[in-house]
């Protein structure tokens, strides 16, 4: 935490507010970067570069707006630019969409598997692991909306996709996540052996 931001520094490239607001959001930007790229070191490069760009273009931030949204957008642009140098964007996975639709069709199975464990406090690692396995197009939307609490419209802007696409990817991403968690719960024996009598 930066608690000693210099109040006398008026240079445009070194605004004292930057340290407080933007730096406090680094966990969020890192999580978002991880949702864009599977490789942790690529994500670190995205964060590093995004913060440098954000710092240099601080004047483009509109005070009073959500600074995380601004930082997510910069991170996304950095990611796209790095990708142009590498491989093309992976097209949205039809196969995964089919799995998501199947998960929806297996609603009763998924809900039955997840319901008894949803309130467990030790579910975090399993959710995190399931999230990491989501196809990236779904993952970025789920991370922005479900973890970072961004409105659909903000997620659409950050990712450069229509709001309707946010809506459908969110739906499918969540269903995929549920399916993989239910699978995990059964495989890991998290479900109670007896069908009833779980503690309230």
């Amino acid at each position: 935490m930066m608690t000693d931001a210099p109040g006398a520094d008026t240079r445009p490239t070194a605004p004292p507010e930057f340290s407080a607001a933007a730096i406090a959001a680094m966990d969020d930007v890192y999580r978002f970067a991880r949702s864009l790229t599977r490789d942790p070191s690529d994500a670190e490069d995205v964060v590093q570069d995004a913060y440098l760009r954000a710092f240099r273009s601080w004047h483009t931030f509109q005070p009073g707006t959500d600074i995380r949204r601004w930082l997510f957008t910069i991170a996304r642009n950095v990611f796209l630019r790095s990708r142009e140098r590498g491989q093309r964007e992976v097209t949205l996975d039809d196969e995964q969409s089919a799995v998501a639709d199947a998960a929806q069709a297996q609603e009763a199975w998924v809900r039955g598997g997840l319901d008894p464990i949803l309130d467990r406090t030790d579910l975090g690692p399993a959710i995190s692991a399931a999230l990491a396995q989501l196809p990236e197009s779904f993952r970025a939307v789920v991370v922005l909306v479900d973890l970072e609490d961004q409105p659909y419209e903000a997620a659409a802007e950050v990712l450069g996709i229509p709001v309707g696409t946010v809506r459908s990817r969110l739906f499918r991403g969540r269903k995929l996540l549920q399916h993989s968690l239910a699978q995990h719960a059964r495989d890991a024996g998290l479900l109670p052996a007896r069908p009833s009598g779980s503690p309230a």
Partner: protein
Amino acid sequence: MTPDHAKPTTGAEVDCKAALESLFEFLDGELDGSLEERLKAHVHECRPCFERADFERRFLAAVQAARTEERCPKALRERVLSTLRAEGLGA
């Protein structure tokens, strides 16, 4: 900003199909006032939809709670800060 799908006629009661189609938007607070009210009314009166909404709400809360599982590595934080200091941060 109204969703352009699964939207019942204005004033009409929401049925189960429409409720389920808009459930996530409802839980995410993304519906406009009138549709939100009608959906809320349906969910409160319809047991299957209520249970489904309750499940999805708990699921979303669990996902939100998993947010703290992943944090920016300390070394990266230090690296970013030192880069920014070289740029004039806190100088």
